[in-house]
């Protein structure tokens, strides 16, 4: 069989090639901002597992990233230099937790699931605030330990973390594409289209969806681990509801189920939004308007599948006065 590159794979390759080039040539201090966007993009990718594959809305991404961050930091303070063991254990635990959480919530409808997962996020924040002795409460936690890889030493620096984020994202994208093309992936898509019909065909809906939800949780937790050791400081604010809501917004803007488009939407729109600092207090309003416009643009494009050019051309046909 010849190596045929599909359109999706080509888009993904182009996307990662552009990002890698940006990472090579941008000065270090600018990468700081780009890495924040990459953290958000990883959460969008994680949400894509839940929503794009399983058809399940989730506002727990912020909470899952926070669980990954806090678990990794606390574990590293007890076992420094054991990153090779700690990180996989944390990610696996997050997978298990998310899968377990998803199990009873699986049958909830769209809006109710959103609220229930949002509750998970809020519970995480409040638990962190309550357990001040371990987590530092609202004051946050300084991260002294670095990620340690035998042979490479301690990982630090903006550029290193840029490529770490990027490689985790590439792995996540590969997992997403592979899962989508597999038997469980197709079963998940069937559940998304029509849950009742899918389960009457003998698909174990709850189990499959807990798989996709768990994978989403694991990717978010991994993003949280990287974010914590990169920033050197964590507090509950960083993993608040805002992160979950933003992830969902960008995924809906890019279209759930698409692989590259939501990620590109994050990188572009976030760059535009971080360029709006000069607006000062009016920033929030501008962000809101921009996101509304992006949402509506996607909707209007979807209800007019024919390119607008042809319609416009017809309406200014000879003999008719253009508006």
């Amino acid at each position, binding site marked *: 069989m010849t190596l045929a590159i599909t359109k999706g794979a080509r888009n993904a390759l182009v996307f990662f090639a552009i990002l890698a080039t940006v990472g090579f040539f941008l000065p270090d201090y600018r990468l700081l901002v780009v890495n924040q966007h990459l953290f958000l993009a990883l959460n969008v990718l994680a949400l894509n597992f839940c*929503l794009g594959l399983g058809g399940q*809305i989730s506002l727990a991404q912020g909470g899952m990233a926070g669980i990954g961050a806090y678990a990794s930091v606390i574990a590293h303070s007890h076992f420094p230099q054991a990153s090779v063991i700690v990180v996989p254990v944390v990610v696996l635990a997050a997978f298990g937790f998310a899968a377990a959480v998803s199990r*009873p*919530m699986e*049958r*909830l*409808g*769209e*809006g*109710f699931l*959103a*609220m*229930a997962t*949002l*509750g*998970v996020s*809020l*519970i995480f924040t*409040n*638990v962190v*605030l*309550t357990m001040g002795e371990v987590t530092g409460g609202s004051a946050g936690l300084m991260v002294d330990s670095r990620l340690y890889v035998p042979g490479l030493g301690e990982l630090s620096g903006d550029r290193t973390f840029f490529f770490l984020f990027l490689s985790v994202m590439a792995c996540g994208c590969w997992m997403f594409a592979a899962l989508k093309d597999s038997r469980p992936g197709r079963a998940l898509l069937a559940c998304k289209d029509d849950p009742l019909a899918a389960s009457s065909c003998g698909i174990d809906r709850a189990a499959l969806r807990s798989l996709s939800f768990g994978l989403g949780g694991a990717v978010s937790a991994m993003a949280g681990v990287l974010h914590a050791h990169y920033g050197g400081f964590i507090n509950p604010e960083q993993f608040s*509801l805002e992160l979950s*809501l933003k992830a*969902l*917004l960008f995924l*809906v*803007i890019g279209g*759930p189920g698409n692989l590259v488009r939501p990620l590109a939407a994050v990188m572009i729109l976030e760059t535009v939004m971080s360029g709006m600092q000069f607006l000062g*207090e*009016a*920033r*929030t*309003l*501008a*962000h*809101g*308007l921009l*996101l*509304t416009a992006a*949402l*509506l643009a*996607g*909707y209007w494009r*979807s*209800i007019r599948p024919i390119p607008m050019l042809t319609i416009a051309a017809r309406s200014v046909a000879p003999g008719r006065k253009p508006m």
Partner: protein
Amino acid sequence: MVIQYLAQIVNSGLALGAVYGLMAIGFALIFNSSRLINFAQGELLLIGGLTLHSLTQALHLPPLAALAAAAIFGYLLGHALYASTLGVSINASPLRQLMLTVAASLCWQGVAIVVWGKNPVMLPQLLPLPPVRLGLVFLSQDTLTALVLALASVFFLSAFLSSTRTGRAIRAVSMNPVAARLQGIRPGQCHALSFALAGVLAAMAAMAVGPQTMLRYDMGLGLGLKGFVAATIGGYASVPRVFLGGVALGLAEAALVLLLSGELKETVTYILLIGLLVLAPGKQETAHPA
């Protein structure tokens, strides 16, 4: 000692519960008529309250005028919210509609920051009622005002929904939009009206909550969520029951604050929400608006 504690719980619980109840009714109205979870519900309260604050600064409002101003402004605000979210995306996927309300809440938060700044604003008590002592239970001025406002709203809303033509049309649309349409009802208008009514209720809630806690640009989401929890406890079906759900939530929170710490109160509230959602039967959304 214990009795004093209990009286304290009842007083602050009822004050909060009345506000939660009003938010919950607005939430349930919109959800029933258009199957949309309105994330901007708290911002309706926020903007309504802040505008009322500016009005009281500029004019000296007598109580009834303040009430009327709040209601009219809430009504307009609800229509504006409808026009900017569901109205422009009536055929979009429910998810996109949901996200539009999230974006709207961000926009309105931005408006609040630009116009009123980030400092909390204290709304004066516009309906001064005397405090009441009923045996052991003591109801402070704020509590009594909140309760009266809320009960009056519940009464008028129930009457409107059950005995006017328009109210019955709203209920018909929430039962079955397609059948309602076949009877000559315009679902779009009913959706808009339910948003507007939710706006009025949120303005009433703002009048109740303003003097208790200050109004701040980021308070919307938290209050909206409490409204959702309350609506879930009340079961969405009837106005008085949803309101009682709010009162129950307020009393439970007040009790938890006195027994445990503030953060634990939130944790318990949301665990309660998840438990209710998972365990309650028949809460699955089936129909989407046509």
